[in-house]
């Protein structure tokens, strides 16, 4: 523990420690980096769309949606298939009955 009486002096020193400080300077290649960065940015609509689509979060969300949609479609199709098969069975039974006249088998 330090001497409490000297705290105001210490704190004032810390508080004013940035007085007369020189400005920090960035790297000497700033202009090149800025120009590179600005050239890499999308400008047109299609470039903007591509830029967003290539972002991992967007790409994965879209992929998930497509997969989910496919799963839903396949599940839906499965149910439809069952119904169609049932209908076909009924149709087959009806056809057989009508062709061979299975109810009236006595000669």
């Amino acid at each position, binding site marked *: 523990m330090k001497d409490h009486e000297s705290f105001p002096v210490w*704190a004032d020193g810390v508080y004013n420690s940035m007085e007369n400080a020189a400005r920090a300077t960035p790297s000497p290649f700033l202009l090149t980096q*800025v120009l590179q960065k600005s050239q890499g940015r999308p400008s047109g609509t299609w470039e903007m769309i591509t830029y967003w689509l290539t972002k991992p979060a967007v790409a994965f969300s879209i992929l998930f949606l497509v997969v989910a949609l496919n799963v839903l479609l396949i599940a839906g199709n499965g149910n439809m298939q069952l119904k169609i098969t049932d209908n076909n069975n009924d149709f087959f039974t009806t056809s057989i009955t009508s062709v061979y006249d299975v109810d009236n088998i006595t000669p």
Partner: protein
Amino acid sequence: MNIEINATGRSADPSLETVMENWKDMVFNTALSIVQHKEDAEDITQDVFVQIFQQWAIFRKESGIKTWIYRITVNKCLDHIRKKKRQKSGGLLKRIFGNTAEEETIEFEHPGVLAEKKEQSVQLFKALQALPESQKIVFVLHKIEGLNQGEIADILGITRMAVESKIKRAKNNLFEKLKLMYERP
């Protein structure tokens, strides 16, 4: 965004280079004092100049170029801080396996500070980290960049009274933090 570049790989508009030459230190110093990280400050400085170049043609000289550039810089710094916070709160795995405690205790040394005041400035920036963003920004603009209350009010789009109150609160909070640091070194 299209900046024309000539065959030598330089900007075709010489005024843009002049703008950068005149204001790069101011932008970088402000960003560095706020985010306290050299690479992040360089990144912010680049983003600031990309925006300046993009909006150069439509810049209305109502507020003055200095105010305009400061405003862009402050906004970019705030965006950066928010992004970092989001990354921190979202990084569950990083929190489990990483050593965030170590990250938080990194000491920042401002490169422009006088040699005899280096240790004190480290304490100042440590205390500054704990301030709310708005107070931190007002403190940096006032105490490090040496702007007056009117200029800060123009940059932040608030009243002079609000700036004055933020400076007071920042000072009080800083002294509280410094007291804690003094008692528990």
